[in-house]
């Protein structure tokens, strides 16, 4: 059967290349570009220098464009070691270098201004002003921007219409949740190999089986479910996305490609690919990102001060006697016979006239000013932390 290659209706595909035997299946499946991860530079890197160079050369010969991954974050001491390492890497083999640390970006800009940069902006960069800053700073050296998974469709559409260079998004693969340089597993799980992988679950979250990996760069936690935007691939292409990334590093890659290769190459029923992926998948924030709506519930807004006419806060209530108010507004005094409004933490609103006004010695006064505690007539249903306003 001849499978027609998907043309122009879908974004190009790239993926991570870990070994030589993956090259042909990737090629057959229609991948254009492969990301190579040296162990010294890349979070999940396993390739030694000679393997990296050899694999990059084979990729080139096979017609795959090799990209060098340098996605670790680096303190200065590590950065200096990386600088030395880079001297041994024939960077000209690679079509571009893929970086996240602004230090790595700045280093490439100053030392290797001719090497194209694939800039990973997956962390933050949820406003166009920030993306625009990078575009302006790097100019033509910026070949591609890797966009955040947290961007909803509407925002993606807007950004994709404005970004002048290539763009990339994770199409199918693991969602990285957490990255620390500390070694969190090796104290409990000793293993001679360089990668330790376990799963984690907590009774405090309904999610189970978080994949957790420790290696020389630290510890990484992933979402139990993968990220899958394949059913939106053609829509994304229409919005202007250039590359969809397939992260198959946690998979039995070659057997998987035997099954999904024809689908990928044809681009028909692309969403079926997820059925062969080892993780169940979600679309993350693609439809909407409402990750700030719960903030309103994090504190009691009834006791949040509103500036207008604010006087202070109730600090003591003595039944049938008085309510003590700490005056907290330097711009507003309280005077005898002022009408006061009380807003309780439970949401009740009460009013009362200050028909008496006393100081801390319980002497009658005409006025109370900022910083003082004053005592006004008692009113039922009040409690401490009630906000007090002058009724306008």
């Amino acid at each position, binding site marked *: 059967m001849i499978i027609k290659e998907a043309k122009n209706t879908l974004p190009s595909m790239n993926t991570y290349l870990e070994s030589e035997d993956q090259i042909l299946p990737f090629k057959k499946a229609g991948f254009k570009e492969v990301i190579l991860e040296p162990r010294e530079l890349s979070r999940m890197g396993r390739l030694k220098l000679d393997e990296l160079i050899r694999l990059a050369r084979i990729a080139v010969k096979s017609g795959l464009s090799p990209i060098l991954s340098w996605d670790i*974050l*680096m*303190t*200065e001491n*590590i950065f200096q070691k990386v600088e030395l390492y880079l001297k041994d890497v024939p960077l000209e083999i690679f079509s571009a270098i893929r970086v996240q*640390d*602004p*230090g790595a970006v*700045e280093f490439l800009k100053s030392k290797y201004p001719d090497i194209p940069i694939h800039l990973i902006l997956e*962390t*933050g960069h*949820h*406003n166009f*002003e*920030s993306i*625009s*800053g990078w575009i302006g*700073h790097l100019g033509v050296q910026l070949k591609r921007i890797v966009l955040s998974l947290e961007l909803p469709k509407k*925002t993606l559409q807007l950004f994709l219409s404005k970004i002048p260079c290539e763009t990339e998004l994770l199409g199918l693969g693991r969602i*990285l*949740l*957490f*990255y*620390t340089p*500390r070694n*969190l597993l090796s104290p*409990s*799980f000793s*293993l001679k*190999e360089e990668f330790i*992988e*376990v*799963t*984690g*679950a*907590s*009774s*405090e*979250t309904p999610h189970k089986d978080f994949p957790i990996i420790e290696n020389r760069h630290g510890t990484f936690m992933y979402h139990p479910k993968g990220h899958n935007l394949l059913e939106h691939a053609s829509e994304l292409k229409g919005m202007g996305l250039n590359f969809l990334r397939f992260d198959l590093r946690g998979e039995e890659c070659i057997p998987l490609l035997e099954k999904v290769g024809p689908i990928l190459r044809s681009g028909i029923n692309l969403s079926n690919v997820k059925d062969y992926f080892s993780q169940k998948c979600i679309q*993350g*924030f693609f439809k909407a*990102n409402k*990750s*700030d709506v*719960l*903030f309103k519930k*994090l504190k009691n807004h009834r006791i949040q*001060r509103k*500036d207008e006419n*604010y006087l202070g806060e109730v*600090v003591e209530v*003595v039944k049938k*006697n008085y309510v*003590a108010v*700490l005056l*907290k507004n330097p711009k507003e005094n309280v005077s005898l016979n002022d009408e006061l409004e009380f807003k309780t933490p439970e949401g009740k609103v009460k009013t009362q006239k200050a028909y008496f006004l006393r100081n801390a*010695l*319980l002497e009658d006064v005409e006025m109370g000013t900022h910083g003082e*505690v004053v005592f006004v007539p008692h009113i039922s249903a009040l409690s*401490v932390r009630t906000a007090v306003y002058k009724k306008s």
Partner: protein
Amino acid sequence: MSHWVPELLSPAGSLEKLKVSISYGADAVYCGGQKFGLRSAADNLTYQELEEGVSFAHENNAKVFVVLNSFLHDQDLDELPAFVSFLEEISVDAVIVSDLGVVRTVRNVSNIPIHLSTQASCLNIQSARFWKKMGVQRIVLGREVSLEEASLIKKETGLEVELFIHGSMCMAYSGNCVISNYTSGRDSNRGGCAHSCRFEYTLEGKENSGVKKELKSFFMSSKDLKGISVLPDFIRYGIDSLKIEGRMKSHLYAGTTSKVYSEALSYFSKNGHFLSEDLYSWKEELNKVTHREYHEGNLVEKAGVDSIYSERETEEKEFVIVGLVLQVIHENFMLVEVRSSFSSGEELEILPFEGEPITFKTESLENVAGEKFEKTKPGLLVKLPLFEGVKKWNIIRKRIEQ
């Protein structure tokens, strides 16, 4: 002759805490407005409170830095210019920012100095150079950076550098953790962190990895930072500002940490060394506030196994705040807002702004109406005898019976 010491920068989760931190010796405080910061659950400050806070700080020769360190989405940016203009109008001393879009917006609409938040995880010289080009004047370096590296970054870039010296630590590279976003629906980088790293996890080795083991562990939880022992190195390396974490923490925490580090820095300023008999008591004082087990983080060497706080979250504290002095009635009494209960006859300590704690026993407890109490409870205002040196915002604490 006085010796150079760094700025002490303390947390101010509310206007009251701003006053407490400054009164106890902070040279500068950092606080948030109602939006744009990373502590949505903190009280944060309203416009008027910010204005009052800045006035209070400047009257006391202290500075106020306002945090705008969320990773903002496009729609969040709409309201930012007006807020930044307001901050400039009230003479805020700097803003703390992590998002390049926010840096650019602040620069476009104001001349307020910009400090790069630790949330941006600036870790190396080249990264600092990038941020300098973007208009940043100070870098709050990532918690992974050592004192020696921080010094090098300062030297090579000419930027001011700020490092955390005390408080809770993120286990992840700051800004690189989205556990809350995906598991709790709360964006940790916009102020909704659910502290998933403090949970207990059951870890199970993957069968095909050769690791066959199951265990329960708080493997992602970090011990708290306590840098007082390496204070001489902070000075030797010329770190410009020492930051205390904790906008969500109590008045007692803000007051005690500010007082301890401020007294230690003052001592060095006068004497040029830390060979003080007070060193032991400074360290002890820091044990009296709520904390997890302490550690020195990455300040001297890379944080290892012993930096993991492998226990359930508990509040280790020796003392609890029982009251806050709201008003001093000259030669009569102090009016104290009760924050935790205490009984008549119990031994209490007043933490003055300077000097040793004042220990006293409460003879009798009464409110201004003359009602007497055997035991107080939060929500009462009590009159307590006045001691020399006691001032408004002094903290009163008691030892917890273990």
